[in-house]
């Protein structure tokens, strides 16, 4: 094999991954939506290698942005950690059910669920901060509410957290899906925190950013042992995404909540389309 085309592949994947990391870190997704189609459709790699690389992409997005998000007090670590109990349990049950689950049907069902979820999001597209949200019993008991410095608004924004049991259940489903379908399910996490628990959009995406890394780590060992994480595919993804996520994390503070929502909605539609596509083609 010639080294030049290999190097070209490396540089192209690296460049595309910078964008995946940049956008993913802003909206709380892992970048699988970019990485998987790029590697399978554009470069013809087997789906297992693409999914292995997308696990690397998820963790790189999460860890690359996390240092800045923790330092800037954007992430709600309590909300993330509490919900992560549900997500990791869901991921384990998903991994067990994967043998008997009708994968194609699940892709179609959850693709449709995502499409429907975009409606309430689109309705409040211009909303900067959620209003009339009050801590429920669980939020009080777990002191989930918090505050973050909003540089765009120029003040500290404190917020409360609603509908914790519903959000917790949705996180179990999010974990279940990622265990079953091998996708990051950052979309479900952002939706649960934004639409159900009514956290400010930036807190939802940065907390999702934290969570997707932990969820992905739970299955990373399996992919590694199976040999799905090919170093020459995963290396450009990791390096590109780390760079993109670092830049993205620095950009987030300067963007408004409604801008983040405007970036999130088309991505949500794209991910839904990708899931429907994979369900219909049964890949």
């Amino acid at each position: 094999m010639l080294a030049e085309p290999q190097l070209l592949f490396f540089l192209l994947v690296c460049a595309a991954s910078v964008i995946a990391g940049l956008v993913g870190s802003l909206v709380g997704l892992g970048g699988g939506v970019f990485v998987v189609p790029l590697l399978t459709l554009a470069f013809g790699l087997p789906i297992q290698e693409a999914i292995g690389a997308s696990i690397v992409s998820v963790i790189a997005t999460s860890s690359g942005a996390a240092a800045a998000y923790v330092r800037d007090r954007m992430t709600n670590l309590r909300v993330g950690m509490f919900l992560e109990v549900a997500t990791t349990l869901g991921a384990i049950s998903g991994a067990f059910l994967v043998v008997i689950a009708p994968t194609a049907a699940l892709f179609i069902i959850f693709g449709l669920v995502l499409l429907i979820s975009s409606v309430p999001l689109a309705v409040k597209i211009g909303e900067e901060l959620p209003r009339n949200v009050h801590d429920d019993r669980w939020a009080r008991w777990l002191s989930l509410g918090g505050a973050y410095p909003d540089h765009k608004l120029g003040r500290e924004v404190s917020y409360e957290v609603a509908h914790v049991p519903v959000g917790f259940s949705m996180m179990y489903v999010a974990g279940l899906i990622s265990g079953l379908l091998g996708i990051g399910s950052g979309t479900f996490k952002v939706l649960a925190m934004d639409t159900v628990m009514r956290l400010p959009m930036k807190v939802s995406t940065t907390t999702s950013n934290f969570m997707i890394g932990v969820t992905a780590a739970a299955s990373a060992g399996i992919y590694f042992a199976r040999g799905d994480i090919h170093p020459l595919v995963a290396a450009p993804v990791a390096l590109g995404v780390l760079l993109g996520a670092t830049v993205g994390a620095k950009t987030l503070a300067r963007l408004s909540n409604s801008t983040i929502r405007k970036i999130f909605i088309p991505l949500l539609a794209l991910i839904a389309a990708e899931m429907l596509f994979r369900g219909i083609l049964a890949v």
Partner: protein
Amino acid sequence: MKNPGNGPPTLRDEIEPGKDNGPEKEQVMHRQAVVRQAELVISYVLRGGVLLSAAIILSGVALFYFRAFASGGYMTAASAFPHTLAGVEQGIALGNPLAIIVLGLLVLLATPVVRVAVSIVAFLLERDWRYVVITSMVLLILLLSFVLGKGGA
């Protein structure tokens, strides 16, 4: 301020501006400083892990392509890569650049786990027992998933 329920007082509730909170205020200030310190430590751990993994991956990649071009632009059949810990160790001992890349990737994949572990310590320092338990549960489930994954794969 806003904590009408019977939940535990949170830091944002404990200091009331404009009111003399006495010696308790100093304690809370101290705890807030501890929380901030813990956040900064978590941030440094993450940055360190990410930089370390990127450096290892980059050196593996550089070595790989240097060798490929040094041998006249053709890559040798060294495309086999390790996917066990023992394999990585052997590969590195033999100077296999792909094993070096895999080591860097493993450091990256471990960062979220390390982060959860460090968070337990942070919540311990904050004396936030509720979250010490919750975070320990997450770490246990993570470790359980590794054990189950090994059995299943």
